[in-house]
Structures are given as C-alpha cells and as structure tokens.
C-alpha cells in the first residue's frame, strides 16, 4: 500500500513487511529502543525489557534481508559488570562495525566488536564537560565524531570514539537551540545534527559544531501519555501532522528527508529538508516471518485469530522509539511496544496510486 499525503506525490512509500516477534531470547525482541544498521542488512538492536524479565535486556543481531528476518546472535546482559547494562537505550556502529551502546542508568557507553566481544567502556556521572547524566541518543559522524545526547543535562556532547571530550551544545530551555530532556539524534549526509527535543515536542537542527539552524514541529497533545496507553497504539484521529507528542527518534535519509519517531502519537512523520510535512506512517503490520512460525505451532491461536474482526490494534505502531533509513531506501521503524520492526520502502519513482 502506498501512502500519499495532501496530493503531494513526489515522495511515496510502500509498506514492505514486519519483522520480529515478542521474545526474551533469540528470535524476537523485547521493547526494542533503538537499532544500528551495519553492512549486509545486519541490524544491531537494543532491547530494554523490564526488571522482572531482565533476561530480555540484551543486544541482538539479525539480518533483515528481502525475505524477512534471520537471527544471527545476541550479546550483553543486565547488570553492572563490564559489558553489562541496566537501562540500555541507544546504539550506534562505527565504520569498523564496532558497536556502541548507551546505558542511561550507569551513565556509560559500552563498546563491543562486531561479534559482541566487549572492548571497553567510558562515562562519568555528572554535569561537567564530558560528564554524563542519562545519555540517551548516540550518533557517529563520518569523521568518527560521536554525538551523545546528554539528556538530563539538556545538551549534546561530542566525543572521540574513545570517549575524549570534544565539545558540547545546547542548554535547558524552550528557545531556539535550547533543549528539554532530549532523546534521539540523527545526522544527515553533510554532517548536520538533528535532535529529538523530547519535552519541547520538536526536532531541532544544528551544524556539526552546534550552531542552531532550524526547529521543526510544534507540541501536539501536550505530553499526555495516559491517552496513548489507553488507545493501545491507535493514533488519535484529531492530531494533525506537524505536531509532535514527545518525539523520541530522528534520522535523515540520502535525500535529506527527515523521519521522526513521534512516540506518543504512535506514528512516524516524514518531513522534507525545508520542513514540509509529507507523510506519516501509523503502521501496517500483519504477521512477520517469526510470527508465522509462532502461530503455526499454536493452532488454538489460529482459531482465535479467525474470530477476530478488527486487527487494528495489531496493525498499528505503538510508541515507536526509533527510525532509520538504510542504503536501499528502506525505512525501518522500531515498533517498541509491539516488539518488532515495521519496514517501508521509499520509492525512487513516483508510484501510481
């Protein structure tokens, strides 16, 4: 299904498939918060899970080929020891496919090699230069600069990949260039920085050096999470595009289009580089490959599904935390509360509707 917005069809997207299922180990995810795209369709996923099932707190690695998901391995575990994490939230890979994971409770960045072998960590709790208070978003520039969203310090800090402090920008507030409890971060191909200014309900654009350039979006439902909880992922019909409700994740594709995981609005919005809102995804999920495996071994659930008239709650995105676009123009959305990924294809040619 292609989606067109307001008659503007210069950019169209087609739903491709859904990947994953809810599992604490192996072939599934448990509150996937963020993912990092590596070569050969390999994806590293941060699973938050929860305290009574901390066995689900892990990084898993899977391949997202055109035939659907394929499990590779998993690593990392819940705890305070080296290589472990308590509240993992964000992940990035460098050009050598070393893996960086931000832990917003232990205030440290863990580094692993591509196979998940722990290499090192860094991070000191505090508010001084290079110190961290809830590191929530990670992005690595082409020159190897690492940007860390230092959420409770309401700023973005720049580091080398070894954790040496390079600089910072942003301060608490709601004015241009100011931030309130920011979360996700993304870079465009020219190295500009896009920050999900979470509690200000907007996206802000900076140069790599931190000079403010633009703000996108305005507050939507005022951060009301209870409505979202109640709706179970179904987007409120009266929320217009261009409004955000606690945006969590942001990324920019090769054309400069901006994708925002609009967390409490249960959708992903797409903007042109000049800030024109061109599309939104609210979810189109059916059954994933791993989901079919699961259902097949549970015939009573097949029967139960046959009685259901409305699959809307299953179809929609529910509080998505992250979105990434890969080299093939596939828009990959972490559908965090449904423990899966929804994937759309950005069409290179206009699609006839």
């Amino acid at each position, binding site marked *: 299904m292609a989606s067109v917005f307001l008659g503007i069809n210069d950019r169209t997207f087609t739903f491709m498939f859904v990947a994953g*299922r*809810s599992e604490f180990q192996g072939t*599934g995810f448990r*509150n996937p*918060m963020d993912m990092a795209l590596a070569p050969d369709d390999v994806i590293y996923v941060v699973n*938050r*899970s*929860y*305290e*009574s*099932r901390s066995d689900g707190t892990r990084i898993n690695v899977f391949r997202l080929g055109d035939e659907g998901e394929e499990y590779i391995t998993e690593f990392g575990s819940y705890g305070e020891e080296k290589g472990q994490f*308590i*509240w993992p939230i964000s992940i990035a890979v460098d050009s050598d496919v070393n893996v960086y994971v931000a832990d917003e*409770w232990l205030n440290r960045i863990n580094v692993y090699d591509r196979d998940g072998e722990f290499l090192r960590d860094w991070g000191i709790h505090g508010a001084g230069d290079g110190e961290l208070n809830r590191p929530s978003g990670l992005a690595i520039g082409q020159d190897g600069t690492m940007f860390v969203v230092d959420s409770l310090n309401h700023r973005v800090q720049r580091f080398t990949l070894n954790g040496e402090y390079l600089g910072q920008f942003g301060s608490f507030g709601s004015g241009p260039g100011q931030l309130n*409890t920011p*979360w996700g971060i993304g870079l465009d191909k020219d190295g500009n920085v896009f920050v999900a200014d*979470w*509690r200000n309900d907007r996206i802000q654009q900076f140069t790599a050096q931190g000079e403010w350039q633009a703000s996108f979006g305005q507050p939507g439902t005022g*951060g*009301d*999470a*209870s409505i*979202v*909880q*109640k709706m*179970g992922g179904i987007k409120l019909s009266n929320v217009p595009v261009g409004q955000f409700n*606690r945006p*969590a994740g942001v990324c920019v594709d090769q054309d400069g289009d901006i994708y925002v995981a609009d967390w*409490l609005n249960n959708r992903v919005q797409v903007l042109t580089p000049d800030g024109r809102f061109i599309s939104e995804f609210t979810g189109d*999920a059916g*059954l*994933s490959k*791993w*989901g079919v495996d*699961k*259902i097949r071994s*549970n015939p009573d*659930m097949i029967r*139960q*599904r046959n*009685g*259901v*008239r409305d*699959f809307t*709650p*299953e179809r929609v995105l*529910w*509080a998505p*935390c992250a979105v990434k676009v890969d080299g093939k123009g596939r828009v990959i959305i972490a559908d*965090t*509360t*449904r*423990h*899966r990924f929804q994937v759309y294809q950005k069409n290179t040619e206009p699609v006839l509707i």
Partner: protein
Amino acid sequence: MADREIALMAHLLRRAGFGASRDEVEARVAQGYDNVVEELLNVGDAPGIDEDLMYRAYPSYFDKVAVETGQTEWVYRMINNRYQLQEKMSLFWHTIFCSGDNKVDNARTTTIQIDKFREQGMGNFQDLILMLSKDPAMLYYLDNIESHKTAVNENYGRELLELFSMGVGKDGELNYTEDDVKACARAFTGWNLAPTIPVFPYGRTPFEFRYDPADHDHEDKTFLGETGPWNGEDIIDIICKQPATARFIARKMYDFFVADEPPVPSWRQSQPRDLAAINTLEKAYFDSGYEIKAMLKALFTSDFFKSESVYYAKVKSPAEVVIGTLRMVGHHTSPQPGLFFVAMEPKYMGMDLLNPPTVEGWHTGAEWINSGTLIDRINFAAGLLGDTGLPGVKSIIGRLMDRSDSIPPEEFVDGCLDLTGPLTIAEETRSELVAHVQAGGELRHGTESERENFSQRTGEMLQFIATTSEFQFG
C-alpha cells in the same frame, strides 16, 4: 505549629493517602485542614505524575505483558501520584470489586480496570457500578461471559448484590432473595466480550466489552419488587436506590478509612461499630444522588474521623506498609531501577495486588499478620528507615540536630517517634529504647565524627521504631 494539628494532618494523610514525609505534613497543616480535604477530593488539571517520564524509563508499562509490570506501575503511581486520594480510592475499590489476574490472565485488561477506578473512583456510584458491569476483567473473572439467554450463569449477578452493592442483609433482615439473584443474573445476559487478538506473536491486546442483544433475556423480570423487561442498567438503577446499598458502601468506607468493621458476611447480624457515623455517610449518599465524593467529604470532615481514638486504630495493609514507608523516606520518587523488587513486597506480606485471593478480597485487620508476614513487614520498613542516605531519613536527622547541640536520650527517642508519626508507643517499650540510647553515650553533632555517629544512631533508632508493634498500625 500545634502538635495536635500535626497529628490530625498526619492521620488524614495516612488514611486519605499513603502517608507523607514530615515536611509535607507541616506544609499541609499550614494550608488548613478543610482546604487539604478539598484538594484531596478534587483532582486538578496538573497531571498527578509525569507519565511521559515514567513511560520513557519503563516502556514495558505500556503493554504490561506480565502482571508484575502492572503491579510495579501501580506501586509507582501510589508512591508518586500527587492526588493521593485518587490512588487510595483505586485501592479501595480493588479491595471490594475484586477481579484477579490469576484468572483473567491478561494483565493489561486487569490494570485497565484499576485505571478506571483511579479515574472514576470518586464519582457517582451508579456510573461506577455500570462501568464495573461492563468491565472486561470483571465479566471474565465472574463468568458473565458464560451467562447466556438460554443458560444463565449467576456468578456475577449474585456477587454484584452480595459483595459489590447491597450485602446479604442488614439490621437482621435479608436484603434480597434467591429470586432476585436470578432476575439480576438474567438482566446481565448478553453482556459479553468481543473476540480478542491472541497474545502471540506481538503481546497482549486487552479484552473489550460487547453487548450481544441476541443473547440477552428480554423477558420480564421481577427484581426487588419491581417488574419489567429489565436490562443491566435498570437493575443498577434499582440497586442504587436501596437503603441497603447506602449502608453497604458506608460500612465499607468506614472500615477502610476510619476503623475496622467485622467481615462482610456478618453484616446482616452485626451492627456497625458507629451507627451514627454510618447514618451520616448514608445521608450523604442519598442527598448527593449517590456521589462518592460527597460521602468522602462527609467522612473526612466528620468528628468521628478526626477523633484521636481512631488514630492508629487500623492494622496497615501491606500496600500501606510498603508505600507509606517509601513515602516517609522519600525513595523511588522518580524512575530508577529496583522498583520491581519493592513492588513485590506487598505480595510477600500477603497482598498480591491485582490478584486478590477470592472475589471476597483480602481478610484485613489482624489477619494481615502472621509470623512470616510480620518478619517481612518489619524487615522492609527497618531496612529503609535505617538507610541514612535516603532523603526522608536525612531530613529527620537534620531536624533532630537542629533541636540542640546535645540531645538527651529521652528527647531523642521522643523526637524520632514524633518525626515518624507522631507515633505513641507503650511506656515499657519507650523506656527500653531510652535505655538503649543511654548506653550508647552522649548524642552530639559538633564534629564530623560526631555527626556520623549521630546519623548512624538515628538510623538505628528509626529501625527500632519500625520493629515496634505500634508501627504496624496506621
């Protein structure tokens, strides 16, 4: 500030909420008692908690695939909701309108019921009981989904009358007959659930109410003397105007907020402990057109509630032990790891939230206590009160230090009792505590090492207070 006012405010905040730190008690006294009651009764526009921060830290609270997640979220809300009476009322209704996830097995459905208690718990009783009769967790728990036009299941119809609204009897009389139960159950046929998306592969979807007119018994029914083609709404209408219903809610409220009443099954024979108080609440029920808030207002502003004879007259429920202690010491006031473990404590103490043992709910009063639960209650409270790093404990230490450069043992013990209550303990116990302090030498705080010693001994004294039998009351 008069001690009497502090004691009264602390009493109000323990009963209409889960207690408070001394700093909050004093701030509330300054506000004035009646203003505080109004504030407790009226939920304002500002959110009770910062839900966005909560869900960001604990994303699993959205779908609540496991009951533990729902329990943990509720504990977080009980600790932090600034509208404390809202949470207390959700617990109140949960102890009466019991449904358990051990049967429902869909934690999101079970907790959505609690969310509704939170939102509507101080509203109109008729609305509340209509909501309850359509609540998916309840319909499943009491088998109304098995009740059909051609084969009536009486479980919900019976419990609605016996345990949720009227009670078996009052003043020696029966409130309804078996025929009334049958009529009631017939009126709720067709009140059912829609087919639900199964749990695999993406997690749970909550149950949804669906009325099926084809499965409803449309024939005439005679219920409490009134005859007509009653549907569920009509039955609720008739129930709400019964004096028995006013009596039932009044006694439940008195039992929960004022002092222990005997268990419900005996209410047909046993008179209320304070009939005048019950009559006051019954009157508020009818005068207001079944408004719970009006009853609560009558209760909290009454002399029977403010009477010192009912301070500490109730054995604290496990939720009150856990939440009350956490609020006193100021722990888990923002999202942090470890919450799951404290949220399981009520269960270890015999109150598995979201899983009442039966539809009759928990047995309360002295029945909360056995040798196993008492150990857990004492260890939990002592562990936190002895932690001198926690803000509430630090504040108590600071207040004691402010009293004088060297604090005599008796004054020290009394100060600790005052700041954790004010709590009165048996003189025999108090003198043991005083003797213990005396044996430990002088309490000064001039030097760094003296301050450390002072803090450590305050933590120790607070632990001892947590072990007293009096601390088990709230």
